[in-house]
């Protein structure tokens, strides 16, 4: 039933106010009123944000009658953010290699356009369309 769990975590954390609430709950449990204080929003609005975080499994509320302090489920939070961050880092590593490759391709294109050893690096448009790397 928790199939779209990660989606809910993703969208729950997409909102800056909710990210802030999570950051503050990481420092300790807090009631809705306490959480609402620093924001220019109503208690109801914060309550709504908390509901979203609850639905995502990131936050629980104790049954402590009146106060019902919100509690960050650090395990779930850590695990989900770890997944996302690791996935992101893998993509990042790939794209950093692509950065490096693109740099050499741009250099190649530059070198070819300035063939007759002119001193000024005339910034001609990269004529990289020609398949130069076909020397198999």
């Amino acid at each position, binding site marked *: 039933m928790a199939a779209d769990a990660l989606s809910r975590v993703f969208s729950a954390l997409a909102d800056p106010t909710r990210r802030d609430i999570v950051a503050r709950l990481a420092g300790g449990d807090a009631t809705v009123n306490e959480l609402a204080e620093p924001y220019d929003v109503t208690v109801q609005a914060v309550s709504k944000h908390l509901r979203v975080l609850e639905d995502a499994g990131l936050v629980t509320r104790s049954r402590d009658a009146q106060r019902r302090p919100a509690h960050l489920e650090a395990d779930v939070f850590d695990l989900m953010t770890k997944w996302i961050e690791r996935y992101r880092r893998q993509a990042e590593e*790939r*794209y950093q290699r692509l950065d490096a490759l693109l740099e050499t391709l741009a250099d190649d294109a530059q070198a070819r356009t300035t063939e007759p050893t002119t001193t000024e690096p005339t910034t001609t448009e990269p004529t990289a369309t020609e398949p130069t*790397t076909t020397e198999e």
Partner: protein
Amino acid sequence: MSTTTPTSGHRTEVTSDPDVPLVRIVREFDAPPLLVFRAHVEPELVTQWLGPRKYEMRLDHWDCRTGGSYRFLHVGDGQEHGFHGCFHEVRPNELIVQTFTYEGVPDGVALERLTLDDLGGRTRLTATSLVESFEARDAVISSGMEEGLAEAYERLDELLLRDTAA
């Protein structure tokens, strides 16, 4: 080339759609779309960046044009993982739409869409991957994690049970 320091200051952003099982990656590059496109199309360039670092990426074939297909292997740790798919639509310097199948799960297929936006000498790359279910999407994101999907769902189930029982 083995350094991990970013050669550009660009950050890779990963987002997920709450309504459909889709992951979106957005990244900018300090190169024109022409070059970014070439790096996706020319086999000898593709192998230089696409595979994960711990595996060797071996191309069986890579025919990146509309109606073309590809197959490649990740080889390492005494293991071989195969991947294949078709290039559905390829428009130079702009768009690549392709299917993607991990041969370990041969019935599964992702629909991938890559768009390149020209930012005037720079490029914004947007890559989306649409899979069949939220479970499949979560499995993709959590693959290779020491704490896998099952454990996370167990914890979540426990949590939800605790909530409803309370």
